[in-house]
């Protein structure tokens, strides 16, 4: 029970600090919305082009804004030695990882919802299936991206070139997430692909489970090093 209460404490702390500063979500929104606005001036998509291009454009905005947010994820922990304070306390390292994963996912999902709203409005996107499926896809994709992003953010947070190192580590590892998310979104927009929506979303789910499990097991060693 204390394990869950410790996770909740870290998440609550992150949310309170973010609501006060709005620095992470502010940066992610500014960046993501700028990408969407630039795309909207560059592309005038008809219905057929929408099926082909919109998923890639949308997930590009999601992914780059998320990386920006993940860069800030452990910054507050390294100010004033707070990470040492956490390591000193009786919180299991896996609980720190899970808490940061949930905080990151919440911040990224929030900014994605706003970016999605602008994207749908500017490109007049029509989903052929129920939009609830797209929300499920966003949740699975975001968790997958955060699962690796959280661990790489912890690795890069104390390096001088963290803005460069995080995407360098993160992007190659999340290629399966990007492919699955883009393909599944194409299906939701009416494009026919080799695999079904269920197959792509199952692939995302499996990716999430594997990387969360691995990260939970490895996080203690990563913090130690």
């Amino acid at each position: 029970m204390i394990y869950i209460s410790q996770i909740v404490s870290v998440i609550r702390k992150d949310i309170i600090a973010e609501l006060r500063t709005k620095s992470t979500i502010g940066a992610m929104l500014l960046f993501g919305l700028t990408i969407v606005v630039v795309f909207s001036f560059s592309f005038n998509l008809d219905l057929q082009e929408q099926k082909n291009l919109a998923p890639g454009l949308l997930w590009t905005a999601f992914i780059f804004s998320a990386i920006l947010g993940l860069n800030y994820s452990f910054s507050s922990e390294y100010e004033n030695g707070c990470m040492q304070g956490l390591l000193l306390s009786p919180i299991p390292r896996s609980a720190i990882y899970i808490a940061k994963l949930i905080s990151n996912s919440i911040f990224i999902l929030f900014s994605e919802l706003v970016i999605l709203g602008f994207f749908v409005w500017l490109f007049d996107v029509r989903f052929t299936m129920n939009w609830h499926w797209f929300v499920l896809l966003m949740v699975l994709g975001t968790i997958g991206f955060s699962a690796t992003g959280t661990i790489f953010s912890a690795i890069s947070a104390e390096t001088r070139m963290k803005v460069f190192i995080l995407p360098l580590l993160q992007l190659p590892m999340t290629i399966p997430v990007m492919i699955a998310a883009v393909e599944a979104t194409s299906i939701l927009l009416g494009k026919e692909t080799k695999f079904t929506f269920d197959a792509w979303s199952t692939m995302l789910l499996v990716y999430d489970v594997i990387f969360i499990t691995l990260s939970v097991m490895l996080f203690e060693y990563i913090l130690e090093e």
Partner: protein
Amino acid sequence: MSETKSVFEAQNIVKRFGRSAVLKKLNLRLKQGEFVSIFGPNGAGKTTFLKISAMIISPSEGNILVFGENIKNAGDLARVEIGFIAHDTFLYRNLTARENLKFYGNIYGIEDIDSTINHCLESVGLLNRAEDLVSKFSRGMLQRLTIARAFLHDPTIMFLDEPYTGLDSTASVFLNELIHKFYNTDKTGILTTHNLDQGYDLATRLVILNNGRIEFDADKDSISKNDFRDKYTEIISS
């Protein structure tokens, strides 16, 4: 009082950073109620030893035992017994003083947390600033809140890494009071310091660490302050 009970024990601690060993087979055993001052020049390994003792970093070799239990097995249970005041404050800038203490209190699983926080803030004279953001605090107030954070969970063993460095006079008074209260209740502490007078006055036992090795270890009663000063100079300059 169980005078011979070992509360804390460092066994053959070695710590290497790359190829250089900062700590070389260091052994230290503390009984309940002992307050040890560790002296040594910069780079002697004092901070590294305290970080290993507080389980912030792991030793390359050796074991730390808390109440006879190896911390490799006891882990989180042993951490509850430990408090640490370091150079850093461990405080979140964008939280208030109360939110910071509540966060750490929840992590430590403290019951009756609100009254404990009020008591801690009162003991360092910050109760009236409880709802202020830490980023608005002066250096002295930060130091006092750091002291409150360290004593919040009522640790049995306290590690103090140069706690008086940069401390203003008000914070020094609060820290002195808390340290005296602490070891008057038969608890155990390790203090590292450059200040021979302050370290000598607070301690029950004196240790000199030099080049990663303990080169002097004696009860305070067995050596006068002047003799200890001479011994320290002799070891450091050898």
